């Protein structure tokens, strides 16, 4: 991003566009990558509510893929996932492997 001088900034450095943080991708912070195994998913959406980075795409009440542009790889979803018959629907793998 090109840095702005004081003349270019709105008074008080007010940010005029709400939710503009979506333009800042935090996925590169990730050291571990969550993998979603659809067949073990019971669609409880606990991963969605507990995700601190709003990085799980949900459409019409159904869980979709991870949003790797923003997922920081904390692993909360994998730990809280109840899975199906004891089989976890989310596993963490080392990034780049």
């Amino acid at each position, binding site marked *: 991003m090109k840095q702005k001088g004081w003349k270019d900034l709105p008074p008080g450095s007010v940010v005029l566009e709400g939710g503009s*943080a979506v333009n800042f991708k935090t996925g590169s912070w990730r050291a571990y990558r969550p993998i979603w195994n659809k067949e073990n998913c019971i669609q409880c959406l606990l991963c*969605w*509510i*507990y995700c*601190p980075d709003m990085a799980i795409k949900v459409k019409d009440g159904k869980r979709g893929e991870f949003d790797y542009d923003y997922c920081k*790889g904390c*692993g*909360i979803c994998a730990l809280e996932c109840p899975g199906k018959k004891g089989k976890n629907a989310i596993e963490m793998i080392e990034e780049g492997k």
Partner: protein
Amino acid sequence: MATGLTLKELSKKEDRFTHGHRMCSGCGAPTVVKMVLLATDYPVIASNATGCLEVSSCISEYTAWKIPWIHTAFENAAATISGVETMYRSLKKQGKIDKDIKFIAFGGDGGTYDIGFQSLSGAMERGHDMLYVCYDNGAYMNTGIQRSSATPLGADTTTCPAGDVIPGKLRSRKNLTKIMGAHNIPYAAQASPSHWMDLMKKVKKAHEFIGPKFMNILAPCNRGWRSQTNDSITLSKLAVNSCYWPLYEIEDGVTKITYTPKDKVPVADFMKPQGRFKHLFAPANEWLLKKVQEEVDKEWEKLKKQAECGC
């Protein structure tokens, strides 16, 4: 009570706190904010005291907030939002505005228990129609884990470091939820993100009262608690189940426990995974660990008695 409190229904709502914020990986605070805003079915204006949440959610030109949001100094989140609320009431009276708007102030434990305490107490006493949400991570995490008055007994921080001289913090944390209850406000409550339904019900309930409301919400910090990035929900669950962080509400001066753990676990279960309490498991500090357990038990018994007698 409004319905729609299923995850399926909630997931159809727009996130008013977006991804792209720069809180640490696995932080508890964004989850708290997300839940509070999801449970709010009104247009909201928020103020935010200086703290982790404030500095990482709005870094020049990028804001994670999709609501009007005001950054204030450490000490005056409550004063700022009470000013906004007063202006709103005036504009409404003049007929210049007709929307029903809710006002929320967010602050960490430093900005709430310590530095912002006077402005919070003042706003509560003046009776502004607002909700103050404290996300309590138990120290000044943003500036490098200095102790606050929310830091629990025995915790290691950079300003009460555990070593040969002292075994971490020697004072107990202050019970802010009860202090707020003592302001005789319509609603004060304590919640935890692990119990999302309880948390959201409390937010919804809070918005239905006219007047000042306060919520104290646990927000694990893996950096300051010296734990793992994936355990914020697990730890907050243990905090509730050990009664270190009981879930209750004070409605018009009447205390009600909203969740009683089926099997109360020792507080050591909550502390063991956290590096800030590591020293308490050394034989020399056994007495302190015992003291922590005694204090938690004492507070829990006191709370139960208050709930029983309806006071």
